[in-house]
């Protein structure tokens, strides 16, 4: 009841705002600036920071949450001097374009002073104190990629690559590992979809993402035993706490697949609700619709998608702490490229030889296709526990519904899904961030999960199961001055029950299995002078075999490969070593990382004798274990060449080897590098911070492939050029509008990426011209 009433009120307010926002706002109106002062290293709020507005000669103090508000500003551009005890003072320049946006101002330790970075300009991802190799996509980075899938948004990050089924399905790969070896934390909750499938992309509404942190290498201690390869931490914006309405409308158009997408958001920081009192709330709706993608030479039949998402957040801050309740819905319908959806092995060879069928562009989505919905309810609270510290508790319920429709065999019944899976997940996690004990700061926690998987389709894919996990963890960090040390451990128990399924060919018995083990990690970061640091981590992590690895049985359509599970698979164990050298200077920010991830009992698909059936012969693979080693080098950075000219670069080399046979591992990303040149142009009365960005991506051929299977055929290298024009904001008749225009794959190059699942049949998409328009609401509203 409470939720529906609130929803109604928010929707009502939303409609009113949309109506009113159609009236342009006068140009010289006074505006307010909201911001938050945070620790640049930990992201924790810095309470009682002093914010001095230089032009207005006024002071405000940040509240307990690090937030501050400067009202009644008449200047277009203001300078803020931000000071807090123990931190280096920072000067920030903010323009009226930032009204309605929460400006985050990170402060750094006095000892580790970085030069001031301007808001809105790509911020440095280099943090000298973190031992592990991480990257961060800031709100500004994410705004520049809006309208794409989550995977596509992450494409430029070093060490991250994408398994792709055309433009609609993109699955992130971190240091060569993906699917069940990567944990996606969405707003502090483990995203539980059917993540084991490589064509099952994360169910995340990119319009609702504010920030993404990428942790390369195991993140098992804090995020779960399956975070063996890495963690993607996705942070939506918090519930607003400033008074008044604010919002945004976003519109994107993509030329390649004629996609248009949009999002509308409205928030209010201080709604006075009956019974609840003052709360902050936000509603967002977003939609994306696309038709067939196009390579340089032809359309990719049936590769469109339709997505519709909703999000609602309500939060309240009181003297005891805060409480936030969210509901989100992700709903998508995705077409799969018909030409790659083959029957038996002969068909596959025929499809490869024939090449694609030429078809006209269409928005229609036919079989084969997927229908996926993901609903999540999340309750999160922080409670001040006095001298003990802060207790954060999160409960979440997620319902993932996946339906896959086939265009094969079943002649009359294609309206019914071939496979249907409903995954119900409840998670509860409590973390106590304790008060510093001397130099020691840290978190201890408890995490519980209950999961049920229901099969609803016509055919068997994986058995129904019930899964419980429980974990205890502790993670501590000590800043000793000469070094920052960190260490942690996690004990986790996984109880899994698989339910009987018998059929003419499939025989899964009732079975219960328990896995438990300890994951541990240790890290050190040593500053070398003022501008350099070196960090190293080492850790042990493990992963229990997944249900699909133990019991899958059947033809994987699209690749025409027969996959057989092995119920006797044992745990995977890894030993990871990672070293990172960082530099953060006046003109250069850079990091260089080297790693070695040794996985014993690595679970992979091993080719076996073909399976013969009435439909012909299928190449067959069986889940097996081996010892694998993944090593790599990653580099990234940015250089201020001249005033207004910035160079960015990134690169990743990766080698995956089966240590037993000394052969390359299947499905490892090719070596790649990117270089970008950004020209920052001078401001004009109608535009603020215009820029031109030219990017070059070069990918080496992938010739390190295992022999004996055509799926692993080598792919050629390729080079792509991107060109982008944009500005932080335009002033159109006194209304602020953000506009960006980008040309991806400028020269319409035909290429096939090694991790594209359509690479045996067709090229990757060609040139794409992207237009992004964002209209913030609420400035002077």
């Amino acid at each position, binding site marked *: 009841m*409470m939720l529906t009433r609130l929803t109604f009120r928010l929707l009502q307010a939303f409609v009113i705002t949309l109506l009113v926002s159609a009236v342009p706002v006068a140009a010289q109106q006074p505006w307010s600036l909201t911001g938050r002062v945070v620790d640049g290293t930990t992201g924790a709020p810095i309470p009682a920071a002093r914010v001095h507005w230089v032009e207005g000669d006024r002071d405000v103090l940040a509240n307990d949450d690090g937030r501050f508000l400067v009202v009644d500003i008449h200047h277009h551009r203001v300078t803020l001097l931000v000071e807090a005890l123990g931190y280096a003072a920072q000067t920030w320049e903010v323009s009226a374009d930032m009204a309605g946006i929460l400006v985050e101002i990170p402060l750094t330790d006095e000892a580790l002073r970085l030069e001031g970075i301007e808001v809105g300009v790509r911020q440095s991802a280099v943090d000298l104190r973190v031992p592990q190799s991480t990257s961060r996509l800031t709100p500004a980075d994410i705004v520049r990629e809006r309208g794409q899938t989550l995977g596509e948004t992450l494409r430029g990050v070093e060490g991250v690559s994408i398994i792709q089924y055309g433009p609609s399905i993109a699955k992130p790969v971190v240091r060569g590992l993906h699917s069940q070896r990567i944990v996606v934390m969405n707003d502090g909750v483990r995203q539980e979809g059917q993540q084991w499938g490589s064509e099952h992309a994360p169910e995340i509404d990119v319009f609702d993402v504010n920030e993404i942190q990428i942790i390369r290498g195991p993140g098992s201690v804090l995020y779960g035993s399956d975070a063996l390869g890495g963690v993607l931490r996705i942070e939506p914006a918090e519930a607003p706490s400033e008074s008044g309405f604010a919002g945004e409308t976003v519109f994107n158009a993509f030329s390649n697949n004629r996609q248009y997408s949009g999002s509308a958001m409205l928030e209010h920081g201080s709604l006075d609700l009956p*019974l*609840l*009192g003052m709360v902050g709330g936000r509603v967002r709706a977003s939609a994306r619709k696309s038709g067939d993608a196009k390579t340089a030479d032809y359309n990719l*039949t*049936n590769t469109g998608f339709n997505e519709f998402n909703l999000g609602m957040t309500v939060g309240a801050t009181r003297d005891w702490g805060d*409480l936030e*309740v969210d509901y989100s819905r992700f709903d998508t319908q995705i077409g799969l490229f*018909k*030409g790659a*959806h083959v*029957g*038996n092995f002969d*068909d596959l060879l*025929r499809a490869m030889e*024939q090449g694609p*069928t030429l078809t006209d562009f269409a928005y229609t989505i036919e*079989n084969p296709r997927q229908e996926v919905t993901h609903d999540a*309810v999340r*309750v999160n609270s922080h409670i001040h526990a006095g001298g003990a510290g802060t207790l954060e508790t999160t*409960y979440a*319920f997620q319902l993932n519904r996946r339906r896959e429709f086939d*265009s*094969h*065999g*079943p*002649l*009359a*019944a294609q309206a019914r899904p*071939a496979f249907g899976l409903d995954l*119900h997940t*409840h998670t509860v996690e409590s973390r106590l961030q304790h008060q510093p004990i001397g130099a020691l700061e840290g978190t201890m926690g408890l995490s519980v999960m209950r999961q*049920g*998987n*229901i*099969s*609803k389709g*016509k*055919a*068997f894919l994986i058995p*129904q*199961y019930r899964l419980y996990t429980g974990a205890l963890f502790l993670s501590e960090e000590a800043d000793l001055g000469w070094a920052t040390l960190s260490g942690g451990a996690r004990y986790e128990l996984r109880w899994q029950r698989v*339910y*009987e*399924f018998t059929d*003419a*060919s*499939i025989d899964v018995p009732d079975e219960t299995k328990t896995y438990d083990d300890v994951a541990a990690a240790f890290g050190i970061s040593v500053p070398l002078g003022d501008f350099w640091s070196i960090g190293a981590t080492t850790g042990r992590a493990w992963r229990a075999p997944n249900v699909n690895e133990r019991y899958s*049985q*059947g*033809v994987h359509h699209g690749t025409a490969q*027969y996959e057989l599970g092995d119920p006797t698979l044992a745990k995977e164990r890894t030993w990871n070593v990672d070293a990172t050298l960082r530099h953060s200077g006046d003109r250069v920010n850079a990091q260089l990382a080297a790693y070695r991830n040794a996985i014993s009992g690595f679970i992979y698909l091993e080719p076996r004798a073909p*399976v*013969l*059936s*009435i*439909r*012909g*012969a299928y190449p*067959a693979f069986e889940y097996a274990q081996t010892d694998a080693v993944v090593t790599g080098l990653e580099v990234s950075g940015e250089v201020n060449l001249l005033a207004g000219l910035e160079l960015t670069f990134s690169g990743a080399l990766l080698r995956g080897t089966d240590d037993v046979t000394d052969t390359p591992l299947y499905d490892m990303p090719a070596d790649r590098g990117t270089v970008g040149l950004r020209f920052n142009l001078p401001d004009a009365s109608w535009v603020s911070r215009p820029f031109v960005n030219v990017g070059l991506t070069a990918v080496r051929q992938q010739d390190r492939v295992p022999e004996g299977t055509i799926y692993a055929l080598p792919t050629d290298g390729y080079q792509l050029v991107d060109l982008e024009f944009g500005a932080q904001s335009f002033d159109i008749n006194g209304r602020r509008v953000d506009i960006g225009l980008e040309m991806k794959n400028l020269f319409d190059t035909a290429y096939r990426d090694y991790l594209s699942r359509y690479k045996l049949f067709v090229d990757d998409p060609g040139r794409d011209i992207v237009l992004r328009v964002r209209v913030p609401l609420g400035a002077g509203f």
Partner: protein
Amino acid sequence: MTASSIVRALSAIILVAAFSACDDPTDPVANEQELITDVTITLTPVGGGAAIVSTIADPDGAGPNPPNAQTAAIALEPGVTYDGEIEFLDRQNPSAVEDITAEVAEEADEHRVFYTVNGLTGVTVPDASMDTDSNGAPVGLIFQVVVDAGAASGSGSIRVVLSHYDDAPKGNGSVPSDETDVDVTFTASVN
């Protein structure tokens, strides 16, 4: 925030969680996958005589077990033309056997049966002998096996491929599609 409002907030959450109570995986799953398990060809000599009926069955359909051996030998006589018929059945559930042949006939312009003779000289399955779809292209549910009078004796095989066209049009049906519903090989001999 009062205690009662916290209770209200929590009960709303519990309500949502209650909707999720239907997550019990102990309910059995019904496997309703439609597939072809039996392929039967019937060859009746045009001039009269006993029909040859042979079936290749694969009880697990696309499952990992190979198909069973064919039920009867196909021994052809030189100089004889046989009227052929093919039948596709789904026998997964023995009490409700489904005739897939009828479905193929219904969607004739999306299907075609290919017969490839290997190792037998003088034995042909002419396209012209087959039934046709609405566009006049061969379907192959009905066909003829023509054995020349001079056909050499020996053994070989007849490969039967049921092609399903749905992304690329069938056209004149001369090229197999990349979706094969059935691919089995009967051994055959000429006396």
